[in-house]
């Protein structure tokens, strides 16, 4: 069942916008966001340029058993990579099943 987009029911990651900056995980009062990332050298720099690295997101998970839907992560994200969605969060039969891997860890 879906409802108007303004409904605050489910927080979703817009993966291409995420820079793994950790701000959402640090601002979350209930500690429900887990982020794993690594850095990679940026390829294709002009010759003589200083080496640069960028963050690559490896895992982004929200534990719906801890989340209290306060939306602080949505507000704080400087890259608008988190948004409210009107759908309900996926159900689970036990607490561990409520961890939603929005970007699953590499196997």
């Amino acid at each position, binding site marked *: 069942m879906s409802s108007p987009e303004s409904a605050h029911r489910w927080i979703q990651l817009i993966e291409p916008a995420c820079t793994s*900056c950790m701000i959402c995980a640090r601002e979350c009062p209930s*500690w429900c966001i887990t982020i794993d990332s690594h*850095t990679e050298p940026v390829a294709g720099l002009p010759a003589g340029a200083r080496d640069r690295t960028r963050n690559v997101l490896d895992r982004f998970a929200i534990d719906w058993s801890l989340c209290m839907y306060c939306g602080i992560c949505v507000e704080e994200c400087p890259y608008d990579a988190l948004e409210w969605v009107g759908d309900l969060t996926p159900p689970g039969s036990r607490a561990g099943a409520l961890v939603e891997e929005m970007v699953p860890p590499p196997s």
Partner: protein
Amino acid sequence: MISWAGEIVIKVLSENWLAAVEALQADGFHYFDWLGCVDEIGRSDHFRIVLVVRNIADGAEPEVLSCLLPRDDPKIDSVRGVFAGAAWHEREAAELFGVEFVGGERRRLLLNPEFEGTPLRKDEVLAARTGMNWPGAEEPEEMGDPGKTGASSSRRRMVPPGVPDPAVWGDRDASQAAADPADVAESAIGGRVRRRRT
């Protein structure tokens, strides 16, 4: 007198508190608005009790009373004999800040009877969290490579709000005296902490 939110604040000594509230009520301020408590840690070793009363009949500005109580023995007279509704506000301030309202209602309002602590004092530590892994502790550059000494390894370490620097609270030198409440409160703000060098 100081100003708060555009209102004139009347500063009262704790021994004059009840008399001041009675005088305001006698002066036509029959409507009790609210009573609250503020932890003044970092500015002074006090709690501030604030009380707001209004005169509904003439619609004048509300009167704001403020009283500083020493942190080590916060005691003030209850005004529930003047405004019965103030008892609820006093119960809340009493359990959340550990302030004693002499002659007030002693039952708890919000917390479980077995709960120990004063949750709204700023030096109150979220003890259960000191033993948990905080998901925000890691820096992107260091993940999955503990031995790496990236740019961030020279940065200050991140700590979550409510969990103080271990050097101040918890994993500190037991032979030292307990940390000052203001230091505990300051170190539990969260963010990057200073590495203490001895």
